[in-house]
């Protein structure tokens, strides 16, 4: 069982969402996040220039069984890609254990992936 975290462009979110639902991911979380990075935008509020380094992105958190990690990463790599600087990153880490709160069931079988 792994956790996949992906930081992607807001503008790619809708397509990535569709693609994930069409592959075998049933449920995932996302957050709107602000990052500080290299890419700078000039912003002016009432004539005053301000915080040009804040970048808005969407962070996805997907927990899935081992066999789904590769296909899921592949989908994100494909769909979130624009080729411009700032397309984002994917992180994969181990998950130790999980429980279903409703049934009390333990282990990665509670992730109701279709596969």
């Amino acid at each position, binding site marked *: 069982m792994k956790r996949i975290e992906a930081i992607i462009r*807001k*503008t790619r979110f*809708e397509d990535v969402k569709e693609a994930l639902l069409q592959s075998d991911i049933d449920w995932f979380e996302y957050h709107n996040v602000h990052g500080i990075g290299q890419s700078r*935008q*000039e*912003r*002016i*509020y*009432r004539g005053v220039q301000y915080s040009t380094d804040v970048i808005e992105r969407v962070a996805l958190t997907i927990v899935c069984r081992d066999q789904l990690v590769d296909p899921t990463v592949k989908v994100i790599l494909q769909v979130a890609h624009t080729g411009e600087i700032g397309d984002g990153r994917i992180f994969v880490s181990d998950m130790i254990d999980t429980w279903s709160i409703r049934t009390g069931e333990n282990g990665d079988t509670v992730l109701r992936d279709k596969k």
Partner: protein
Amino acid sequence: MEEIGISLDTVWMLLAAMLVFWMQPGFALCEAGFTRGKNTANILMKNFVDFMFGSLLFFFVGFGFMFGSDGAGFIGMPNWGDLSFYKGELPVEGFLIFETVFCATSATIVSGAMAERTKFSMYLIYSAVISLFIYPIEGHWTWGGGWLCDDAADGFMMSTFGDVFHDFAGSAIVHSVGGVLALIGALALGPRIGKYAKDGKSRAIPGHNLAMAALGVFILWLGWFGFNPGSQLAASGEVNRVAISHVFLTTNLAAVAGGVATMFLTWFKYGKPSLSLTLNGVLAGLVGITAGCDIVSPLGAVVIGLVCGIVLVFSIEFIDRKLHIDDPVGAASVHGVCGIIGTLMTGLLSTTNGAFYGFGWGFFGAQAFGVLVIDLWAAACGFILFFGIKKLRGLRVDKRIEEEGLDIYEHGENCYN
């Protein structure tokens, strides 16, 4: 006594002008609520531009186009900021303000339909042209004493239909013109990214704040109590006090009937009573009653509201799913389609000369002809204007700007921080 009467009329006209001005924030909030938060500053800005450009241009030129005289009834003489040509009982400066807010209402209808994808600079051109030219000219044909409302026995309308075109407060003159331009503007622009799937299926792009949209509609509703009863342009004396009271009642009845019709129809059709469509339904009723609010009975007003509320739902569906024209706020259906329906229904339901009251079809013919001519004018101007801009300079923002929001790229300021 007479002196006080004219003062009373003036105060009523100016009070109504304030209410009609108040429709600007109504439109602004309504349109902002029905669109996404990343484009809110942009749409608010467009609403300000419509009023600012409209007021200046109508003062300098449009007022003369509309109310000046050419002798033939087709186009007035531009007044170049000089108001002395106008001879009326009411003070000319007050009357100018009253007419200005109507012009600006017509102009601001379009911004919602073209929301979320139009270049701000190109929108300015449209906004100037409608207040300078499109609206004042068709306004001259009607309220400006032009040929559509010429009641001389040997005039074209009287000799053809035996009646003149009647649009009390502007179902056709103000609303359908705005609605037709909205439709053509949205057609020229093309749909927002993601609005239609590859197989052509329509996708919902929910507005970001329905509380804002609902407040906007309530504000518009309040504004309409100036728009319609104010168009009597008088309050003194028995005839006028009865008339404006009657118009208040018909206006409100049509609004509620429109809302009720839409609510039940969406409940029946889509399984749930839709708030966002009911808001449109209220406006549909208001737009519909505007032409005949003075000459239909209260019951007639209810009928007009019901018909507009029902037609609205089918119209929105047709424009979205069949024509694939992306109108985020439903402006083309509310103002265009229901403006036309209301003008036509006045020809049927007028208690003084309507077809359903046994007065024959002459007046209905005059209504149909009038609204046809006015909207053909708007459509022709719209085609030249929007497709002209599209060809010469491009009407639409870049893909990336559209995706990330017009607020940052066009204005550098977000609405929400």
